[in-house]
């Protein structure tokens, strides 16, 4: 008797979920948007803040009624700042979760691996922060969109500052990876194009894991440079700047980029002091317009801190995905890709439109400096000097 009862219970327990499935209306199944960010690894601190941007966008989309009459859910995956791990997550989202559009990857390396796969499976990718130029030359780049601006755009702005200020002896100290070398090339290309009469006296490609750059900085000093362009991340940047202070390199002009923007650089007092004294300007992508003001206030209210670099481009990437699905009228990768190419809307980073290879047609950079501010924990903060608009 008890055995029979158990059997009945077992059969019922199998049936109930099946019934639940059939009673659920297909139209209420949410729309999935893949979200691949590096929330651990070298870029972990940055990735967490970027994820906030994505969540904010998804909440707003759902508050406005969702997409195609359905709610939107983010399929959040961690790429671990590792190209292989990131690519693995892309496959998981496509093959197991069945997503038809992915926002991400964050890094150029993972994007390089993911583009051919995206083409094969017809899944558009929208990266908030992979700035590498070569991604535009990959086979399948029509499947790769980005809401950030490419390294060559940032290089043009940095090159223009060097020309404007009349420096004639350029030194570069850049990360030995595609980001560092790409940005360095972009700066020198721009100078060459504009007929700069100065000389590129020394070019240093450094290893971010070595954490001791005294000899490299000595080379810059010996070369007699009058301006230094430094492309670094956070922890390596701190050591470069504090050792540069030791060598007295604060007497020449330094320029930075999006990689060494942020409060993380001021953890070391000497590095912060150096940046305050020596930096004549750095660049980072920045938003403009009313939608940007809305984003900054909504983000600050929701997460209790101001957005940092690339939270806004991620917010725009999720919005772009949602708008493209809506415009396509169907949840299908190819249709979403076509809709993305014709998309135009006002995002947190200004007017957003993609060209035929998925790059932004226009955007803006902020030129920033470092100033003392006793009200902050470290005593220093980044402050804007001016905003430069850029268009292809």
């Amino acid at each position, binding site marked *: 008797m008890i055995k029979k009862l158990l059997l009945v219970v077992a059969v019922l327990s199998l049936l109930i979920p099946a019934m639940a499935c059939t009673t659920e209306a297909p139209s209420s199944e949410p729309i999935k948007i893949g979200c691949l960010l590096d929330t651990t690894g070298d870029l972990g601190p940055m990735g967490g803040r970027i994820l906030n941007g994505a969540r904010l966008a998804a909440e707003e989309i759902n508050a406005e009624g969702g997409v195609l009459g359905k709610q939107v859910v983010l399929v959040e995956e961690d790429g671990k700042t590792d190209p292989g791990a990131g690519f693995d997550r892309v496959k998981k989202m496509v093959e197991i979760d069945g997503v038809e559009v992915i926002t991400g990857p964050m890094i150029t390396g993972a994007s390089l691996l993911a583009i051919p796969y995206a083409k094969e499976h017809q899944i558009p990718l929208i990266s908030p922060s992979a700035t590498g130029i070569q991604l535009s030359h990959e086979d399948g780049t029509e499947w790769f969109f980005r809401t950030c601006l490419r390294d060559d755009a940032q290089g043009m702005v940095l090159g223009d500052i060097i020309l404007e200020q009349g420096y004639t002896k350029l030194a570069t100290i850049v990360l030995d990876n595609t980001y560092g070398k790409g940005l360095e090339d972009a700066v020198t290309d721009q100078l060459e194009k504009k007929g700069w009469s100065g000389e590129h006296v020394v070019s240093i490609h450094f290893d971010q894991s*070595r954490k001791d750059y005294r*000899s490299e900085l*000595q*080379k810059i000093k010996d070369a007699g440079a009058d301006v230094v362009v430094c492309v670094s991340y956070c922890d390596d940047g701190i*050591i470069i700047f504090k050792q540069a202070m*030791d060598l007295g390199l604060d007497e020449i002009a330094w320029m930075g980029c999006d990689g060494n923007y942020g409060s993380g650089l001021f953890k070391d007092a000497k590095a912060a002091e150096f940046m305050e004294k020596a930096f004549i300007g750095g660049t980072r992508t920045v938003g403009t317009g009313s939608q940007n003001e809305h984003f900054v206030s909504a983000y600050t209210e929701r997460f209790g801190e101001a957005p940092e670099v690339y939270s806004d481009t991620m917010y725009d990437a999720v919005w772009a995905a949602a708008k493209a699905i809506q415009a396509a009228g169907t949840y299908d990768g190819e249709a979403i890709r076509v809709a993305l190419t014709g998309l135009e809307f006002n995002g947190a980073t200004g007017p957003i439109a993609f060209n035929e290879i998925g790059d932004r047609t226009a955007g803006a950079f902020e030129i920033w400096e470092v100033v003392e501010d006793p009200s902050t924990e470290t005593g220093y903060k980044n402050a804007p000097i001016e905003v430069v608009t850029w268009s292809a």
Partner: protein
Amino acid sequence: MDVNWLQVLVNSAVTGSLYLIASAGLTLIYGLCKFPYFAYAEYIALGAFIGYFVSEVMGVSLSGAFVISFLVVGAIGFLCYRGIFQPLARRGATIIHLMVASVALGLILRHLIPVFGDIFPVLEWSWSPSYFTADWAAFNLGSVRITGLWAWTVIAAIGLSIALHIMLTKSKIGKAIRATSSNPNLALASGIDVQKVIWITWSLGAGLAAIAGIFRGAETQVWPNTGWEMILPVFAVVMLGGIGNFYGAITAAFIVGLAENIGVVALTALGLSTSYRIGIAFIILIITLIVKPQGLAMLFRRS
């Protein structure tokens, strides 16, 4: 291309001094125990972390940090030997077993540092780097730039060399260390307490690593890989100097320091990434092993 060679020499002296302080302990341990002790890197990192805690978090002076760090890491070094390597050696572990055990111990110690930081937040130990706040004056001597920290690194290396020289040649324990290193059985037969000699050497070696860790941490940053980052050049110094030979290590430290600094000049002149400079230590290591496995030691061997 303009190169301030005098500055390159000064930089080499600073690099070499740091490597000398770091490798002095390793060469003594290596000479005595005859296996490559990889967990030595973690003594450097632990030294930096303890020094950081003492001087930055507790607010004791930097000199206090050196003393406390030397003593604490010295004690850890003793415990590592007494608790792990002595029992292993007694059970007939070969050089391979001991080496693998030391790699494992190193990994465990390195990853325990942030774990301790999680358990005791007051330590402020974590994977994200910390920085010493001590402000060192920097000044120009002619065309050469020197900072207070570099000057102290060089002074510490010279002081250490003199102190170790006196200890090894004049004191009873120093003579016992040398005797045990060159022939443990004979030393034992001559009535030397070999076990005690090994204990003292392990503590002293670990303490010296801790000092190197503070210098390295103050120059760059403090994080769990602080030691691992520099273990390769340190091993290159020990091999080139001749394992267990302190005088060889002095010469070798400055050769490796010079090679690295000239290497950076050469690499940038060739338009190559300075990432390859770590390869210079590798090349020195390989050439030494092929050409003269006994290192520079023979230059200092009394006939």
